[in-house]
């Protein structure tokens, strides 16, 4: 494989990986999107849709106001996530705060709790009488909660920060762990202040991770549907994603696709900016071959207050929503969550007098098959996406090709900006029917796996890049000069050094896949639904206890995965120590 490549001369050998990645990305990402784009360019309906969205009397409500809301949410959430996630990551990785492993574990959990659950949890505490139903906990205690705290922008941003900060935490923590201990030690010995070390050494080193984490949070927030739909609607706050969902839901698909394209464009502009910062600075290389242990700051008197703060953040964003979910899976009435608990929704047999004859989830024959399908698919997709992610990251950092590299970078991020429903629709539009000799993939698990892999690429590539960008090119260069082929260098140098970041990427993808609803709802194979689909169909039929119980099953799987990943980390670190 490597011999003919070498003979083909330097251009292909140097650009081969980038070209291969570009081809894969075109098939996985660009082609489905172009299919949608073409649909909005049909002369009759498409042009009218573009006019309506951008200039007509409807444009104000259809596009401009939702866009303004979307941007505020995106930027607010990105800033909040970087601050919160970065703060926790710093505490866990760089300081001597008590209970570090527990905080580290808990800070990754919020991302596994579906954002609608967090939004519901917010509602159960802060809801006011605007939507009737008697208000939330605070109103129950006699406080009067103003609309701005119950509904709209403020709660949406807070809930999304609580959901996505785990992303920023995971990425930044992985980067902080690679900060060269020697550098910090050198700075300390020469008398640099803590602030100076933070701003002068740590911050520049983790800059790529901060940008990556912020970008992920931004993209996640602007395309999130559940939180603005639940918290924004009662005060009629619309975002691009709620508008887009609505347009597709009421059959105005062209307008929906136009909105999707605009959402992609807007986010692409912002993320392109972040990419430029990442690409233009080459001085991030900090992992040299020597394993220098990160040094921990002693927090001194601030140790206890900061620990309390960290624990408060973790408890508010993880344990509380989980407890509310658990209560909601046991309580017969959603209005009094803490009374009349019954295990029926979990293990009960069918009883016509209870829950309209619906047996508990563990007596639903579909649950077991959904469980295996979900876990299998999650694992396969996570591995596939992250392998691609690392290869793309390597291509982007080691083989810079003008235009093409930029294209690869942009394409790998695109799926993040596409609401799952639109993405799934695009996949059906392209791969649903036979293409030449290739059979139609509609209704197969392969189509679902492909779409999910594409959807996970942004996570995989961002985490991959944050790690690979820090791996010094010197080692690779040295290996290349001593005659090591590309695959040997990948296996012997890049992968082992990137393993920590890769673990984070695998975890994020796995957790994301098993909790995904937006894509699977349109693409799942009818014979074996996924857990999230099962939860959704329970919820849409008003069986909330069952839906919450299935959500908890997803959560438990996610926590087991996280636990396993943390254990692996722990062992690796001992090896270094």
């Amino acid at each position, binding site marked *: 494989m490597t011999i003919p490549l070498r003979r083909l001369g330097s251009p292909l050998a140097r650009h081969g990986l980038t070209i291969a990645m570009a081809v894969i990305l075109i098939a996985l990402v660009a082609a489905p999107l172009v299919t949608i784009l073409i649909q909005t360019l049909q002369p009759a309906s498409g042009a009218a849709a573009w006019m*309506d969205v951008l200039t007509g*009397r*409807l444009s104000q*409500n*259809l596009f401009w106001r939702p866009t303004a809301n979307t941007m505020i949410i995106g930027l607010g959430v990105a800033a909040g996530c970087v601050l919160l996630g970065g703060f926790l990551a710093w505490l866990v990785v760089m300081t001597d705060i008590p209970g570090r492993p527990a905080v580290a574990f808990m800070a990754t959990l919020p991302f596994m709790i579906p954002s609608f659950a967090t939004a519901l949890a917010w509602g159960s505490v802060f809801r006011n*009488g*605007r*939507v*009737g*139903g*008697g208000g939330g906990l605070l109103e129950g205690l006699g406080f009067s909660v103003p609309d701005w705290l119950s509904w709209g922008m403020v709660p949406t941003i807070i809930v999304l920060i609580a959901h996505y900060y785990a992303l920023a935490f995971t990425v930044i923590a992985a980067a902080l762990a690679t900060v060269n201990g020697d550098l910090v030690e050198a700075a300390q010995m020469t008398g640099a202040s803590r602030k100076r070390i933070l701003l002068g050494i740590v911050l520049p080193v983790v800059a790529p991770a901060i940008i990556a984490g912020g970008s992920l949070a931004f993209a996640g927030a602007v395309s999130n549907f559940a939180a603005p*739909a*639940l918290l924004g*609607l*009662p005060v*009629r706050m*619309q975002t691009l994603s*709620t*508008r887009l*969902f*609505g*347009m*597709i*839901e*009421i*059959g*105005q698909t062209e307008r929906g696709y136009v909105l999707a394209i605009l959402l992609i464009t807007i986010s692409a502009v912002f993320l392109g900016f972040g990419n430029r910062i990442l690409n233009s600075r080459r001085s991030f290389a900090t992992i040299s071959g020597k394993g220098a242990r990160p040094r921990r700051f002693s927090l001194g008197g601030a140790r206890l207050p900061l620990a309390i703060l960290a624990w408060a953040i973790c408890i508010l964003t993880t344990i509380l929503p989980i407890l509310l979910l658990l209560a909601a899976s046991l309580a*017969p*009435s*959603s*209005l*009094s969550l803490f009374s009349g608990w019954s295990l029926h929704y979990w293990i009960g047999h069918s009883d016509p007098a209870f*829950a*309209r*004859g*619906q047996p508990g989830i563990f007596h639903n024959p579909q649950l077991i098959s959904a469980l295996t399908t979900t876990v299998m698919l999650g694992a396969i997709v996570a591995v596939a996406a992250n392998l691609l992610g690392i290869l793309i990251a390597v291509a982007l950092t080691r083989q810079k090709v003008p235009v093409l590299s930029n294209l690869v970078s942009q394409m790998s991020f695109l799926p993040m900006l596409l609401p799952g429903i639109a993405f799934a*629709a695009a996949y*059906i*539009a392209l791969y*649903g*029917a*036979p293409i030449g000799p290739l059979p*139609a993939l*509609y*209704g197969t698990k392969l189509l679902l796996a492909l779409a999910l892999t594409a959807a996970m690429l942004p996570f995989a590539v961002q985490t991959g890049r944050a790690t690979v960008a820090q791996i010094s090119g010197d080692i690779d260069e040295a290996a290349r000069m001593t005659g090591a082929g590309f695959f040997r260098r990948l296996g012997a140098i890049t992968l082992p050094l990137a393993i920590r970041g890769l673990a984070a990427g695998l975890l994020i993808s796995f957790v994301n896949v098993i909790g995904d609803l937006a894509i699977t*709802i*349109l693409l799942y194979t*009818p014979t074996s639904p996924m857990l999230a689909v099962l939860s959704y*169909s*329970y919820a*849409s*039929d*008003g*069986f*909330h206890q069952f839906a919450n119980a299935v959500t908890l099953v997803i959560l438990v799987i996610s926590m087991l995965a996280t636990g396993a990943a943390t254990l692996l980390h722990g062992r690796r670190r001992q090896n270094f120590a």
Partner: protein
Amino acid sequence: MYKILAPLCALALATTAHAQDLDSQSTAELLPQAQKEAKVTVYAFTSRIGRVEKAFETAYPGIDMVTFDMSSTEQIARIKSEAAAGVAGADVIYISDAPVVLTELLSQDLVAPYVPPRVAGDLPEHFKSPLLAQRLSTKVLMYNEEAHPDGSPVKNIWALTTPAWKGRVIMVDPLQRGDYLDLMTELVLKSDDMAKAYEATFGKPIKLGAGVENAGEQFIADLFANDLVLVGSTDDVNKAIGAKGQQNPPIGFTSYSDRRDNEDEGWALQVANDVEPSNGIVFPAFLALNPKAANPAAARLAIDFMMGDESETGGDGFKPFYVAGDWPTRTDIAPHPDAVPLADFKGWQIDPAKTAKIRAEVADFILALQ
């Protein structure tokens, strides 16, 4: 490739030739072929299909009913893409969202009508064509009967636009749920009635605002101006209106049949029927065939089964749908004893074809309001 295609083509030819014959066959005549097919796949917009499955398999041992519960919007997307992929997914389609089904599925021959001969005589013409309607469902004004024990606090729909109900009328965003958009569309279609009702409430003829073309649109505009509260799902509406122990509960539009959950959920939902000119809409749930059904005989058998048997309440096939607030379309099935009979119900029965015509315009009108 040919080896795969040949039987498929033969099958396609066979189904077309057989379709007319099968349509007129009785269940006894369908049974042998259906047993040979041994399977029937159903897409349904309600979880109640699970109970139909059990009852069907008891009634017709040897024929496996495979059911998929998904929303009408999902079904429409799925049916379109399956047709494009040349995959015969479902044999039977059980679906609401009539305006979209008629204009986007039936007009493209993606679904086909079938009326079981056994029940054809018991159905009014408009429930047999263009597609078979199995039952009627609603989106109507509901209130909290615990807070208003003497009946509905609203007697005229225009009351919802007055200061007394400012910020206290709740419904699902009509730009996110098709059936709520159908409700808004019906208000526009019934503009003459709306104008009369306006005069009855305010004692003067209605004056239309700028950019408003009829009384229905004026009502929608006034309703939004009166700080209408929008939520994402019918369940949120039910909870908001129905929760017990409220001093001043909101009022709003939801499904009459959700009253059946009052006991389970601790709600006090009740329908406001005595409302001028109407309390909302009544719309059909369709049963249709896939014209390229893989199991054409079993599909017809399943539709026949879901239309109910000859007993007073429709028997096991109809049992899951025999609830207060849903009405059977068959005139010979007795109305549910706890519900307002359809004949006395104020809700407008939608005309899906008319709705489909102006639905997008009404959506644009609402879009300009919020």
